[in-house]
């Protein structure tokens, strides 16, 4: 079937009418965080109460994607009255429904004015928490697939790439490579068979942005991938998603099936002559598969080991063909850029980093969850205003960004605006967006050891510097946390960091030393206290008695 613009508008209009038919709309978060504290039961109980009182015509109860404030789940939002109920139990259903008709003020009122929400700027997450991720009609009603339609009917592939380039969008996977440039490299490649891959192998410990986007608004990602495929002339694409995210996998499968049924994916999309087939590929728990060439090996059914670059995947990737690999969040930014124009997007953020960034705020902070802020927002605003500061009168110590490839940023840089350049300057990286706040109870040497243990275990073993270097670094760090280190070990460690960084084959090894280097740079006195006085300033390491963790 071929979908026309009229059909899209009709679906949107019908859906809007359906929504407006309800006087009250209750949204229950059904993303992984809230589900795990019982939001399904809360939704069932709300539906039951509404049915018992015969209010089905006036009150809509629906499951939506992530509402953001994961630490206070299960969350229930009354969308028609700007109310947010936190920590709901199934027994609260009655009073929530009662509240719909009463004018009395409750604690749940004015959710939009809470600093957690008012400081945010949502582009990627604009539909998260407002649409039902399992219904394509709701996405279409929220201007979904309009960008794809415009692109297919009114723009040439070159114009699409030009628009993305002008927007100044940079890869959200961590390195920040300009997306437009990447696209045009693939488009210029000689071989005609091309592939598009969406990297949804979110492996950084402490990062759950991609999972939330896939669970809350999967169609947005599909639309971005389809637009990229059109711009590059790719007929086939893959989403490489972690098998550890069963809900995201389920919703993606459903979304692809729905889009195929409407003719938004598949043959001759919207009668434009453009055909695109999109498939899901499951990862199997290997962090190194986030690296482009390893990811390609994994899609080909091989162990996920990287290979030297060049040639870059843009020239020779999957099955030797030009391949575009972008991250979930990058693809999620594409449709809004097309819809609202590159100038709009380029006006947000800083000079070199445009747009917004989604962060997974977690660790020792009052309000944890998923946030989206313009590039250049300061760490103070993120940690203390949005995150609400440190719980239990704790004292801020550092914030860790970029996962095992990143670093720890100390207090003196809290005023700094977050963008690709500023983070690199202080020895960390943007990474995919994990942001872990630490207070005085965290030992920085132990944190470095934790990340090194991660890299050691995730090293694929192909190149010697990474395989052996991470093991040796881990042994040295363990010695320090156990109080068995000598002053000479610190120098050895620094030398080794330099070696691993400069001689490893892929990004995993090249960045593995970052957590050590950044903690050495800002918290050297903690290392010294462990070595010289056999004392852990955070009282975390039990010194001599610390046992080896697996």
């Amino acid at each position, binding site marked *: 079937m071929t979908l026309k613009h009229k059909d899209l508008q009709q679906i949107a209009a019908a859906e809007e009418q359906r929504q407006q038919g309800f006087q009250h709309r209750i949204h229950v978060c059904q993303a*992984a*965080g809230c*589900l*795990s*504290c019982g939001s399904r039961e809360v939704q069932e109980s709300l539906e039951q109460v509404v049915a018992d009182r015969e209010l089905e015509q006036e009150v809509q109860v629906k499951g939506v994607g992530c509402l953001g404030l*994961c*630490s206070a*789940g299960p969350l229930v939002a009354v969308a028609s009255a700007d109310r947010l109920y936190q920590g709901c139990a199934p027994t609260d259903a009655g009073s929530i429904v009662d509240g719909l008709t009463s004018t009395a003020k409750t604690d749940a009122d004015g959710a939009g004015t809470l600093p957690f929400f008012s400081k945010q700027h949502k582009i990627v997450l604009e539909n998260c928490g407002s649409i039902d991720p399992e219904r394509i009609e709701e996405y279409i009603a929220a201007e979904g697939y309009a960008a794809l339609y415009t692109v297919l009917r009114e723009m040439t592939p070159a114009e699409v790439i030009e628009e993305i380039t002008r927007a100044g969008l940079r890869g959200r996977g961590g390195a920040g490579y300009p997306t437009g440039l990447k696209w045009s490299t693939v488009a210029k490649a000689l071989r005609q068979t091309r592939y598009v891959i969406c990297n949804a192998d*979110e*492996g*950084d*410990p*402490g*990062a*759950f942005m991609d*999972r939330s986007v896939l669970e809350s608004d999967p169609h947005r990602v599909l639309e971005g991938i389809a637009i990229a495929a059109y711009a590059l002339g790719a007929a086939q694409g893959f989403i490489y998603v972690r*098998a*550890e*995210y069963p809900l995201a996998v389920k919703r993606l499968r459903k979304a692809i099936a729905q889009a195929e049924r409407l003719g938004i994916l598949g043959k001759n999309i919207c009668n434009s002559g453009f055909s695109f087939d999109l498939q899901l*590929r*499951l*990862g*199997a*728990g*290997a*962090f190194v598969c986030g690296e482009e060439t390893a990811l390609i090996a*994994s*899609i*080909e*059914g*091989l*162990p*996920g*080991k990287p290979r030297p670059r060049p040639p870059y995947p843009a020239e020779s990737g999957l099955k030797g063909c030009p391949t575009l690999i972008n991250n979930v969040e990058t693809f999620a930014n594409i449709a809004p850029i097309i819809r609202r124009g590159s100038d709009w997007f380029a006006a947000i953020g800083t000079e070199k980093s445009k747009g917004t960034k989604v962060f*997974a705020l*977690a*660790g*020792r902070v009052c309000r*944890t*969850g*998923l946030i989206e802020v313009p590039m250049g927002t300061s760490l103070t605003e993120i940690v203390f205003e949005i995150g609400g500061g440190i719980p239990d009168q704790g004292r801020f110590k550092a914030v*860790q960004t970029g*996962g095992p490839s990143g670093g720890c940023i100390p207090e003196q840089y809290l005023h700094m605006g977050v963008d690709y350049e500023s983070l690199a300057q202080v020895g960390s990286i943007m990474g995919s967006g*994990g942001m*872990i706040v*630490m207070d005085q109870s*965290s030992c920085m040497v132990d*944190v470095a050891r*934790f*990340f090194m243990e*991660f890299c050691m275990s*995730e090293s*694929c073993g192909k190149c010697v510097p990474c395989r052996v270097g991470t093991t040796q670094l881990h042994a040295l760090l363990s010695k320090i946390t156990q109080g068995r280190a000598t002053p000479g070990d610190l120098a050895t460690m620094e030398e080794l960091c330099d070696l691993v960084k400069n001689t490893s084959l892929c990004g995993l090894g090249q960045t593995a030393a970052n957590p050590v280097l950044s903690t050495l740079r800002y918290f050297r006195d903690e290392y010294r206290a462990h070595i010289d006085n056999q004392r852990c300033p955070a009282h975390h390491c039990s010194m001599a008695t610390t046992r080896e*963790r*697996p």
Partner: protein
Amino acid sequence: MRQQAEANICSEKDFAALTQDRQWRQVNRTMRLNNNQPEALIETLHAVQDTFGFLDHQAMAYVAHVLRVPLSRVYAVATFYHYFSLKPPGEHSCVVCMGTACYIGGSSALLDQIQQSAAIGPGETSKDGKVSLVVARCLGSCGLAPAAVFDGRVAGKLNPALMEEQLERWLSHDPEA
């Protein structure tokens, strides 16, 4: 002797029988959907693990046969990726998250508790076959740190006492658990 026995399981005739076996339906379907292409190896191993809980020698040999890849490559893939297990799982599974947020939140104490209550470390199954312990890199439930998955159900904001309670329910021979 053992090798001899395994070779027997893996004869052509046995493979032919497996293509019709109802238990292997999902596995066969996955391979068929991918035209028995070698690229489908990881997808197929996922199907095997979904069906049987782990990958045994027979399953690997059968997949190698149908997809026409060397058994050594199947073994390489099965052992490279953490998600695949070559050992049968226990009756109940406990996955403890060791992501950064959970680590900061005290997931090591949870592991210590499991060691104390069930005498198992990561990757091990208790002697009575009741509980298997796996350590996950990150469940992505960082807002609920420290988190774990008990038989497929995510539980957040755990502490050693809650962990002990859960293990008690599994290890005592309570049919309600």
